């Protein structure tokens, strides 16, 4: 904190703002002060209240108590419209584009170019949209396309351009980069800097520390629904400590001891989709990393092992027995579990309770003559939730109400209860906050120590370098390199993924 800045006129102030949903207090007494010409990052674990605060400031939600001021005047925020009128525009985490409408219609919604009769036309819309796109250097999105036909990254860009095109005094961006590629992120940061240099205020959130350190002038850390400090400089370890409220010695736990060669899973010449041929052995107690650039067969490898995609060729042996999983059900019966990246669409039943979701895979085992042993199921679920440190109001709350990292833990807990021996982790830490990442790393290493076999793909090479015993790098559907733990680092993995000769 800096007294000289405190005396400058704030462009945005939130004072002791609170918002609850049912019994859960999402934001409680949070405050935020931002200044003109400032890029202000909000960091915190998932569920710390950042997104809710942004919705309150952007007029999407109404605060139960507290005051929000724009340019020193109390803002009456009944609707996003009211915020817009006062120069505050928000790119929410959940996109607000209309899927069945064209890009141009979305971009110019409610300010369509109109003729004397008050009517618009697709030609006028397209022309106006092209002007807007040209202003922000967008050339590869067709204004006539339907939004639903566009990839997520393009939709995110449109959403950002729409907010930018209103020349906002205050721009709020809630995890704008999670759907963007490097090139688009660079474009966004260029626009953000331009706004800052023009004396505007930009608030943004991200889980990627390098982005925050690259662009933020000030960082406010959130924990448990309120702000715990505002800083102009902060390093990652300090941030993690503040976000979790406990001292974190190191983000990555020590690698588990090297396993003895005892194959839990042996794969020979597995092929299908983009995967041309893969052969490897995964030992008990081993974390076998899978690296490489996206689109080189990783997804296919994981899906085929989990029985979610038909194999074209190849053999899978589980503890020496050949298996042919044709469905996830069969894979699970063979003791193979998948923990995917996208928690909401794969595996969890969001309206059901934590307990129900945890015990879903063992209902058959834990019933007698077709009747569930409810008390035992509840005990099992409670024990597992405690072991995984799931943060939740209680075991009967719906899974949909939990943060992403906690949802992931519940999926993991389900497979642990089902006593699976082989775990397929597919980019599980993507979009997950740093504190939860840390917990996932600890869980993963604990599983390995416990003698379970782990196949681990991550789009973050740093993680593989710190956790895996070996890393197999996939390129063009084949294993291009096998890297041992000694001397392993992220650069070598990336190099192996890109160049033929990189692997020694």
């Amino acid at each position, binding site marked *: 904190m800096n007294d000289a800045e405190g005396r400058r006129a704030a462009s945005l102030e939130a004072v002791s703002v609170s918002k609850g949903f049912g019994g859960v207090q999402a934001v409680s007494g949070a405050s935020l002060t931002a200044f003109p010409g400032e890029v202000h990052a909000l960091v915190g674990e998932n569920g710390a209240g950042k997104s809710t605060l942004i919705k309150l400031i952007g007029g999407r939600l109404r605060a139960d108590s507290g005051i929000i001021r724009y340019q020193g005047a109390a803002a009456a925020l009944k609707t996003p419209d009211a915020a817009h009128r006062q120069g505050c525009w928000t790119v929410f985490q959940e996109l607000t*584009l209309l*899927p069945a*409408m064209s890009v141009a*219609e979305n971009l110019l*919604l*409610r300010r369509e170019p109109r003729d004397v009769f008050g009517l618009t036309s697709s030609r006028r819309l397209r022309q106006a949209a092209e002007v807007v796109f040209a202003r922000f*250097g967008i050339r*590869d999105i*067709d204004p*006539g396309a339907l939004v639903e036909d566009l990839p997520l990254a393009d939709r995110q860009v449109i959403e950002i351009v729409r907010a930018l095109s209103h020349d906002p005094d205050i721009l709020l961006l809630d995890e704008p980069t999670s759907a963007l590629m490097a090139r688009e992120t660079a474009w966004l940061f260029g626009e953000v800097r331009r706004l800052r240099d023009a004396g505007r205020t930009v608030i943004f959130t991200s889980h990627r520390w390098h982005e925050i350190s690259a662009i933020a002038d000030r960082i406010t850390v959130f924990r448990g629904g309120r702000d715990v400090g505002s800083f102009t400089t902060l390093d990652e370890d300090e941030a993690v400590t503040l976000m979790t409220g406990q001292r974190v010695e190191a983000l990555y736990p020590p690698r588990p001891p090297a396993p003895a060669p005892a194959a839990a899973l042996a794969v020979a010449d597995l092929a299908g989709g983009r995967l041309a041929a893969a052969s490897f052995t995964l030992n008990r107690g081993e974390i076998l990393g899978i690296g490489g650039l996206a689109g080189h067969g990783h997804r296919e490898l994981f899906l085929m092992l989990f029985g979610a995609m038909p194999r074209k060729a190849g053999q899978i042996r589980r503890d020496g027995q050949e298996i042919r999983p044709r469905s996830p059900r069969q894979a699970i019966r063979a003791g193979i579990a998948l923990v995917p990246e996208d928690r909401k669409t794969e595996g969890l039943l969001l309206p059901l309770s934590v307990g129900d979701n945890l015990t879903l895979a063992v209902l058959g085992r834990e019933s007698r003559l077709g009747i569930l042993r409810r008390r035992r199921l509840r005990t099992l679920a409670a024990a597992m939730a405690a072991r995984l440190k799931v943060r939740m109001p209680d075991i009967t709350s719906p899974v949909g109400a939990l943060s992403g990292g906690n949802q992931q833990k519940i999926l993991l807990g389900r497979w642990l209860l089902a006593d699976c021996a082989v775990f397929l982790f597919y980019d599980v830490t993507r979009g997950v906050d740093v504190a939860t990442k840390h917990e996932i790393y600890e869980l993963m290493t604990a599983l390995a120590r416990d003698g379970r076999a782990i196949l681990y793909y991550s789009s973050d090479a740093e993680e593989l370098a710190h956790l895996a015993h070996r890393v197999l790098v996939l390129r063009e559907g084949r294993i291009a390199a096998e890297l041992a733990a000694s001397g392993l680092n992220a650069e070598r993995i990336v190099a192996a993924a890109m160049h033929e000769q990189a692997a020694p």
Partner: protein
Amino acid sequence: MMAPPRRSTLAHGLARHLGLALVSALLAVSVIGYGGLYLATQGRLPGGFEFTSSLNNTMPLALAGLAQTMVVLTRGLDLSIGGIIDLSDALAALYLGTTAASMALASALILLAGAVLGFVNGALVAYGRLPPILVTLATLAIFQGLAIRILPQPGGAVPEGYTALLVNTGAPYALFYVLAMMLFWAVLRRSRIGIALLAVGDDEAAASSNGIDPVVTKLVAYTLSGLIAAAAGLFLAAQATAGDATTGNGYTLTSIVAVVLGGVSLFGGRGSGIGAILGAFVTTMIVNILFFAHIDPLYQSFYEGAFLVIAVVLAEGLGRLVRKRRARA
């Protein structure tokens, strides 16, 4: 940023107006089928009488379909359309009078009454946050009951001049009304409120965070539906030349059929009023085709149902195919 190859305006247009394109094709095919059958059985082609009577007979349904579209676009459903048509039909048979002035005044008041009833539906749906099916099912019964009270027995009279104006049997003047309806849609689609209707049906939360008021939008949708349904009742009365407070009942269902055939999505946000109007004409053509094909009348509803299922499955399947293509492109 790189510029990937753009798809043509035509391709985009086709993608967004797929439903309209399909119903146009369906109408073309059914008209040709009807013409062919007619030629085969009658030894001549359909002429002025056939054209005019098909047009006149379809007018009430075309209007009912357009009315239904207003509400379906917002992801609702208006089951009360039949009741409003009943009421409008009954009122027209009783109060049109004989002078031009009385006819104009009564017509305007009847349309106003339809709009008010639609507004009531809209208020219950938008403010009461009640499911549209439930609200309009209840108001359907109420409106039907009112209609029966107003005109307990079929009767009354619609002056000849009124009939000649709306559904002239001598010449296809009703074509003018069809064009007017299409123009109405084209204007609506390009206006603020039309865009709001589509936006609310597409994604209510997203529309609302873009500053579109879903409550106002729904009120307008149901009010327009009531107004247009009342117009359908006027045409129905004009066509019959007398009133019957039960003849509108069927339009609740057939308006939904017209909407579905017209490529308007029952899940809201997609579709065109023009599609629903063309959908109404397709249903008339189906009746004509089955007539001249001399299908055993006992199997007629079977064939009608089968035709409908095939049409919808075809439309849905083609839609999915195009979507997949686009996703791959």
